């Protein structure tokens, strides 16, 4: 290829990518599922806040009980007498009342209508000191949530856009338009355009989902509720997720294209995409199953197929890893992606024009 051809080839990749994106964005099923996903994330963040409806209002008689109530995270409302306080509880003006009671060991009594919040009871009672012999490294909520969040995000995005690459390839085979395309542009340009188009949409969707999730956390004030030492680890994990996602998507994209090129009809796609689906799902389940820090999770964070999920998860649950580790894992992943994409390009080239039935990998490897 001469130097003058190269910018033209790049332009062609973009022409192919633009069509792939335009087709996807006009696909009603794709747009609807994307909107539903956004609504679900927004709802998961906003609905609990709406249901909670702010802190409890608690009626008190004096400043000392007011201090105890506010220490428990509720809002103190000072009233004149114990009867006023009881009436306010009955009428629903306040959620509870805290009144002096000489019979109580704490000198206070909590009055409620049907039930009272346990934090109020705990805050106004005398708790025994607690000593943990082996405190957990991280919040158990975080150790369960982080692998799920990164894993589900990577798995769903990979599956959605990977399948769309395979479908787009087999559609061109099935409608026979592929012969005109191959006569016009090099097969690798076609492949690169498809991967670029699907990849750009996948990154855009991930960015929108992340923006909605992080924006939702900020708007609902839930970010403040996260442990302070978790935030830097979380943002590092999100930052590293981007390059891992790009390389991981590339690693699989070539395989999805080959899965599409091996068959002649969209109905047969299941037979060739199943192995690729397993390559996406098995690392996800492995990472979620091994959710605690340890040698297994460390190993998974270096294996190319599971690294995009396992490395960011480690960064959260271990509260940070030495910087050489993600660099090495990323280099392994990128190297593996290059090898797989080159092999996939040859298989794609070898199978794209074989119509009628399913092409074996051996047939595809041979020259066209």
């Amino acid at each position, binding site marked *: *290829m*001469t130097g003058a*051809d190269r910018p*033209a080839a790049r332009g*062609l990749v973009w*022409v*192919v990518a633009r*069509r792939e994106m335009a*087709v996807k964005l006009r696909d009603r099923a794709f747009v609807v599922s994307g909107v539903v996903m956004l609504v679900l994330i927004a709802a998961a963040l906003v609905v609990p806040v709406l249901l909670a409806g702010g802190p409890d209002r608690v009626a008190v008689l004096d400043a000392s009980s007011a201090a105890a109530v506010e220490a428990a995270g509720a809002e103190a409302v000072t009233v004149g007498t114990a009867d006023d306080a009881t009436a306010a509880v009955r009428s629903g003006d306040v959620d509870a009342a805290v009144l002096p009671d000489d019979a109580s060991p704490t000198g206070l009594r909590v009055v409620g209508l049907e039930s009272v919040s346990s934090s109020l009871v705990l805050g106004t009672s005398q708790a025994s000191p607690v000593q943990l012999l082996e405190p957990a490294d991280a919040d158990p909520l975080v150790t369960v949530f982080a692998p799920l969040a990164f894993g589900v995000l990577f798995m769903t995005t990979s599956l959605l856009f990977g399948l769309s690459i395979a479908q787009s390839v087999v559609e061109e085979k099935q*409608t*026979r*338009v*592929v*012969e*005109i*395309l*191959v*006569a*016009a*542009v*090099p097969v690798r340009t076609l492949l690169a355009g498809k991967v670029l188009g699907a990849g750009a949409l996948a990154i855009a969707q991930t960015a929108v989902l992340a923006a909605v999730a992080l924006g939702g956390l900020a708007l609902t004030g839930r970010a403040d509720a996260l442990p302070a030492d978790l935030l830097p680890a979380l943002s590092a994990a999100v930052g590293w997720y981007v390059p891992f996602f790009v390389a991981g998507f590339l690693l699989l994209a070539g395989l999805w294209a080959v899965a599409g090129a091996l068959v002649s009809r969209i109905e047969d796609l299941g037979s060739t995409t199943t192995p690729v689906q397993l390559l996406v799902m098995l690392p996800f389940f492995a990472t979620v199953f091994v959710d605690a820090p340890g040698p297994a999770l460390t190993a998974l964070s270096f294996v190319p197929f599971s690294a995009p999920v396992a490395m960011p998860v480690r960064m959260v649950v271990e509260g940070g890893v030495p910087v050489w580790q993600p660099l090495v894992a990323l280099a392994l992943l990128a190297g593996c992606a290059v090898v797989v994409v080159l092999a996939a390009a040859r298989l794609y080239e070898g199978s794209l*024009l074989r*119509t009628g039935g399913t092409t074996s990998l051996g047939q595809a490897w041979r*020259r*066209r």
Partner: protein
Amino acid sequence: MLELDQVRRSFGDRTALDGVSFGVAEGRLTGFVGANGAGKTTTMRIVLGVLAADSGEVRWDGRPLGDDVRRRFGYMPEERGLYPKMTVLAQLVYLARLHGVGRATARRRALEVLDRLGLGDRARDRLDSLSLGNQQRVQIAAALVHEPLVLVLDEPFSGLDPLAVDVVVAVLREQAAAGVPVLFSSHQLDVVERLCDDLVVIADGTVRAAGTREELRARFARARWSVVVDDDAGWLRDEPGVTVVELDGPEALVELAPGVDDQAVLAAGLRRGPVRAFHPVLPRLAEIFDEVVR
């Protein structure tokens, strides 16, 4: 000038092309005829780079054909196909852009070609809403939309209604008149005969005959004459050196043995009565085809 030089290709044990050589000249319509499986489609796919040759070379203007030149070729494959869910205009613009045409030019060219093919009012319809005949016309538009340097059409007339055949014939003539070398295959020998300037006959992966239509006709012409008299032409059977090929009352087709004087046969006829017609007959393409392929 597009040239194929000793192009060979086999699929497994089967030799599909066994040293195919011929040329397609600028401004000429070259018909490519042969039975099914003779190697027409394989040859065209190799010209377009869709298949690779085992050996041999395809040249453009004396130089090996490269991808940058090949991209400017127009191709209509035997297996028709476009994007069913895209609009006619959108896919023509897309295909033109793949051939390296800028966006504005691609759009203008697409609309022009659609107008020329009588589809101007369907530009914004989805392809799958068009009749099959109109989809075929879009397929031809797809081969023309980037103003191709060379046109290669595999069975362009199959599946076309008679009206569309006329439109396509006119368009191909325009392209050739504009200097574009046009190579088209067909098994409809009457269409090829009507249309082509040059002819390539292929059988079992080898070129059996190639040249201008007139050359081939002259080369394969046997000394045949058409004779029309007033009453029965049966007497021709008794003339020495004359073989009657067909006889239908007053009309006959005869073949003269070498050295027989046609004017003597005419004179013999005139002695029996009026002769309404007496002229040599050039072979039809179908006959040449039969002869070279056999």
